[in-house]
């Protein structure tokens, strides 16, 4: 078993055993369920398809879930001093970072997968015309954009966790970074730089969910998520390496 697998397995077990893993997922599912039902009622008679409603119900809550799941990954290790024993192990920092990131991503994907039961449950009650409009591919594309978003937010959360010893602080900063900054940035553009609005239509990242769920797949968006995920993990592993220079 490689160090990556061992790290991943240990973190997933910890998530399963602790409230910091199970409680946020339960709350996430409850909030997503409520959002989904409200969105269904609002879009009654509208043009939105079922997978789009599911996607936009889930997407805004993923940053919150990821922030809470990732807050303890490194902050706890730093607070207890366990980080020293991890850095003494003969493995690269990026292996440790990637193992922890993958464990948080696994839990997020698990939660998002459970939430996909919501649209599936109501399919039998849809009118025949709406049923015929449903496409598994559209659902799959919605799932892919949610997976990309999950990986980005998990990577950002993991990165933020390295900078803190206090888990709550890590979660708050992570939520601000994941949810607050993109929205604030978009709001600033709308208010003060409206001429740039068309260049920043991707900014509230929920737009990507609308696009993907309706078949407007953009390689630019995919590249954006992958690059930002990689960049966050890179910063995380380099920060960890810097801890060696000045503890």
């Amino acid at each position, binding site marked *: *078993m490689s160090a990556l697998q061992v790290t991943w397995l240990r973190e997933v077990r910890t998530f399963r055993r602790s409230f910091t893993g199970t409680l946020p997922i339960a709350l996430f599912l409850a909030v997503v369920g409520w959002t989904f039902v409200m969105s269904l009622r609002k879009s009654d008679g509208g043009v939105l398809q079922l997978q789009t409603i599911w996607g936009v119900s889930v997407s805004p809550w993923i940053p919150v879930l990821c922030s809470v799941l990732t807050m303890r990954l490194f902050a706890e290790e730093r607070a207890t001093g366990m980080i*020293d024993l991890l850095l003494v*192990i003969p493995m690269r920092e990026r292996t440790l970072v990637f193992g922890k990131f993958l464990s948080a991503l696994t839990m997020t994907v698990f939660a998002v997968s459970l939430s996909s039961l919501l649209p599936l449950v109501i399919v039998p009650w849809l009118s025949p015309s709406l049923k015929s409009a449903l496409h598994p591919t559209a659902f799959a594309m919605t799932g892919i954009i949610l997976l990309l978003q999950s990986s980005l937010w998990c990577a950002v959360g993991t990165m933020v966790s390295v900078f803190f010893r206090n888990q709550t602080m890590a979660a708050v900063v992570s939520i601000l970074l994941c949810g607050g900054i993109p929205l604030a940035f978009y709001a600033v553009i709308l208010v003060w730089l409206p001429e740039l609005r068309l260049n920043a239509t991707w900014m509230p990242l929920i737009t990507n969910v609308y696009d993907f769920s309706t078949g407007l797949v953009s390689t630019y968006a995919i590249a954006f998520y992958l690059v930002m995920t990689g960049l966050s993990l890179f910063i995380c592993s380099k920060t960890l390496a810097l801890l060696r220079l*000045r*503890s």
Partner: protein
Amino acid sequence: MLEVKNITFSYNTQETLGNITFDAAPGEILAIVGANGAGKTTLLRLLACLLMQDSGNTLIDGVDSLTRPIAYRAKIGYLSERCPLYDEMTVEEYLTYRLRLKGERQFRVRRRLDEVITQCRLDDHRKTMIRLLSFGFRKRVGMAEALTAHPPVLLLDDPLAGLDLPQRKQTAEVLTSVSGRSAIILAGHEISFLLEWCTRFLVLHRGRLVGSYRVNDYEKDLLQHKIEQQMIHGREEGHQL
């Protein structure tokens, strides 16, 4: 064999360790002693690759900590002063996890685990949750973890702190038994007790190595007096390396 050559380390602009040079071979139990703030923990953290020196080199069997850090780290076992552990795991789970993380092959994990658990007298606590252990037993688990992969160099930061006399004696027995295959470098304060089983002493005073003594070369009382004087005043006595 551990070789430390002219190591210097500063926190910001203040020099914490200056020009430290020594070596240690398997069979030796080397105690680093000094007053609080003398630089013992910093030196051990440097040797464990948890800090990076400003200048100088550290080598184990010719492997440099700066040029081949992963190969270097594969050769050390480290026990931190705070002895952190994962409280939610059992002793056996924790040691297995650490062995696997160190890249131990699957077929050897069980053997090493049994060996180290017996060695550190943890047989009755294999399935005990770590959070339920007393401080003394937590230290033993930390020690067991450091010993698991049979490292050529063991770095132990204050392994006796917080232990009662029987536990100290047990720790000394364990370390003496493994000293044949590992060079043991430990930091501590209890000179009279360390004199019973350590083979060499290095005295640090304000980040400088002010003395190095082989225990066999001196009367124990005389050596204890010399070391204590050097710890307090930093006067250079004994065999300077």
